[in-house]
């Protein structure tokens, strides 16, 4: 009598969650821009047996952006998921994994992220500022002013912009631009930079100090600019410890991304 087909995995089964966790760690480990994403929901899962103790798993995942930039050494478990009223960003990911004798490895992943619709935010919070486009002129001017302000006051290394993470603009009752951007330390002190800023280059990746800045620029009714930059210190890759390691499921080094 042919063996009964394996009961399909449910999206909340422990094995499904273990696969989702391996997928989220892989996605965050292989992303170089933006923010870390947290696991919000398994939309669907499909297991294709490949033989004894060998399966291919297809996952459809729903992720949510956290407040940790991707370069931050903060463990994902300590990263706060951006709230709905902060104008949340969702990630939809299709991931293909292999499971051999209980060991999961990611074969391919493809993600698409999108901000929540402005209508949804305004419905819940009419006065909440909304995300602005990263190439908005006001945003670019605010980032430039904030970085120049920080470099003019620091006694540490001169910082250069790596990327703008997110920006929000509020027009009423005050005109305020709130920005977040990633920075990299250069081979100059801020003092040297005053003499010849062109000579200040980002430190090679393996040495450089990355950092993250937030700034609030009030444009009216009064003018004000507050900048806060935190350098992460030398990037020593933290040892990988599964967030919720489960017996019998281990995570090898990340698989080759064949997406």
């Amino acid at each position, binding site marked *: 009598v042919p063996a009964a087909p394996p009961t399909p995995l449910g999206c909340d089964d422990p094995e499904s969650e273990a696969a989702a966790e391996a997928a989220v760690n892989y996605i965050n480990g292989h992303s170089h821009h933006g923010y870390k994403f947290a696991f919000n*929901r398994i939309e669907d899962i499909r297991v294709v047996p490949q033989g004894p103790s060998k399966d291919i798993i297809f996952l459809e995942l729903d992720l949510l952006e956290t407040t940790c930039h991707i370069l931050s050494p903060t463990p994902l478990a300590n990263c706060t*998921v951006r709230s709905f009223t902060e104008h*949340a960003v969702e990630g939809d990911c299709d991931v293909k994994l292999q499971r051999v004798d209980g060991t999961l490895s990611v074969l391919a992943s493809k993600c698409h992220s999108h901000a929540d619709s402005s209508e949804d935010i305004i419905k819940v919070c009419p006065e909440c500022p909304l995300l602005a486009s990263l190439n908005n002129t006001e945003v670019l001017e605010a980032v430039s002013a904030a970085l120049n302000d920080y470099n003019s006051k620091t006694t540490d290394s001169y910082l250069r912009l790596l990327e703008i993470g997110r920006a929000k603009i509020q027009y009423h009752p005050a005109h305020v631009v709130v920005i977040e951007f990633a920075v990299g330390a250069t081979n100059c002190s801020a003092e040297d930079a005053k003499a010849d800023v062109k000579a200040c280059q980002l430190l090679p990746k393996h040495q450089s100090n990355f950092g993250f800045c937030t700034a609030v620029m009030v444009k009216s009714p009064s003018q004000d600019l507050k900048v806060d930059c935190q350098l992460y210190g030398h990037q020593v890759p933290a040892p990988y410890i599964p967030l919720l390691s489960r017996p019998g499921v281990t995570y090898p080094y990340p698989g080759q991304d064949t997406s």
Partner: protein
Amino acid sequence: PVTKRAVAEAAQHDKVPRPVGFVPPPPPCPGKIRYFDI
């Protein structure tokens, strides 16, 4: 001769009697939402 039973009648016969208090299992997917859905 094969007679086609009325669907209602067939459905009536095919309906498996549910034990009192039977709660159908939750659909396997999509899974639970951990934070919020947008």
